[in-house]
């Protein structure tokens, strides 16, 4: 669009000079590739999982919304159920060092064990690079990638934003629905929803 500018006064409001920070991954397009190390020191690249359905679960065990789903056993049930069907479930933590949710590898493994969590791997993204790449805003924030590497779901875990475990039973679980659809080779019925949770605790240096 071309138009003559007689006077241009540009007043910027809004702080963070993070040009692409929260733009993030786009549903319907290729999920951005990344490489991160897990809590056992093993490296994982998303591209290596082509041919599999992948879940990215942004996590922070200190956040009351994450505690809602882990405390009720809801997240663990999804992890076990779907990894049992060949889904690759990657928990991702983008807390900066010193921020809530940041843990050493040993602490992570102890927490996973204590909670009976069963992700395929728990990836450490302390620099926040992958979080920003995906536009991860909350914990939890859920993404589902199909076997062709296309992002088919991005958003909340379900449709009842709250910290109350009692809300889980009656909620529509968008992740389960997206995974069921993808595993059946169908289009995902709800591809975008509002993610709810605590803010991802990116390091301030970002």
């Amino acid at each position, binding site marked *: 669009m071309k138009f003559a*500018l007689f006077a241009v006064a*540009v*007043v910027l409001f809004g702080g*963070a000079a993070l040009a692409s920070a*929260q733009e993030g991954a786009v*549903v319907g397009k290729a999920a951005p590739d990344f490489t991160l190390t897990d809590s056992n020191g093993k490296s994982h690249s998303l591209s290596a999982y082509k041919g599999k359905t992948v879940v990215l679960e942004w996590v922070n065990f200190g956040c*009351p919304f994450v505690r809602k789903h882990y405390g009720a056993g809801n997240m663990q049930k999804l992890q076990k159920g779907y990894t049992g069907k060949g889904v690759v479930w990657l928990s991702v933590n983008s807390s900066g060092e010193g921020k809530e949710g940041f843990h050493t590898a040993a602490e992570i493994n102890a927490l996973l064990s204590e909670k009976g969590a069963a992700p395929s791997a728990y990836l450490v993204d302390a620099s926040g690079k992958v979080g920003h790449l995906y536009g991860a805003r909350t914990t939890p924030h859920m993404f589902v990638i199909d076997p062709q590497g296309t992002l088919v779901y991005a958003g909340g875990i379900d449709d009842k934003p709250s910290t109350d475990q009692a809300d889980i039973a009656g909620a529509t679980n968008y992740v389960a629905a997206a995974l069921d659809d993808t595993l059946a080779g169908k289009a995902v019925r709800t591809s*975008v929803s509002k993610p709810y949770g605590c803010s991802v605790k990116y390091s301030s240096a970002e």
Partner: protein
Amino acid sequence: MGMTLPLFLLAAAVPLSVGAAAAADITLSTTGSSKNVTATLLSEVQSIQPGQTLWLGLKLEMAQGWHVYWKQAGDAGLPPRIKWSLPAGFQAGDIAWPYPTRFEAGGITSYGYHDRVLLLVPVTAPPTAAAGSMVPVSAAVNWLECREVCIPGKTTLGLELPVKAAAPASNPQTVALFKETRGLLPRPARGWTFESSADHVFLRPPAAWKAPSTPVEFFAADDNVILYAAPQAADTGAGGWRLSLKRDPNGTVPKVLSGVVVSRRNGAVEALDISAKPKALK
């Protein structure tokens, strides 16, 4: 009515009695606290008139650095919620939200309040309310208080008001706060429009609106439209003044762009509640 009266916490500093003209057992405000937030239910007036609407307020007072959220929290967070228990025939309306403030941390942007906020709620009495009767009002309130971390808070607040045939007297303990809060409510403004491109929404004011020299902020009321963390640039070209809002790439172009436009001029805040209609891109 068969309603059980709620348990409520009393802070020692909160006075329970009102002015000399009121009966000593009328409770006009009760308080409940979490770690960083004290919640109080206030009535603007001292009685209920049958068939009329009175205003109650949920006051949330926050410890330094902590905040609670607006009706649309932004990137993260959760707005306060009120579940009312009222006698049959009484109706509580929607919360009237004072204009919010923007919070930013690590690239995450949220909308809400710090220090103190009064959320106003209209309550309407049925015409059949009996003069001389007492009306118990109970509010189950939950919120999310955040600083670097977030803590859910909840409490149940109750108060009792007498039904009187005459127009109610104002509550001297609360009248100033209600008046101040009304000044913080966005006022409805018409004539705003928006245009959209592949990755932006451009907000345009009506001809009569004069752009200030200071930054203007738009707080989106609906989710999944704009990126909350993106800078909002104002510029003036041949088409006039406009505010550029970066679209959420997973969002859709709305039929109406709703939200609050906040600007400052001559030291005063102007908060406008807009429902902008779409126009073809100029």
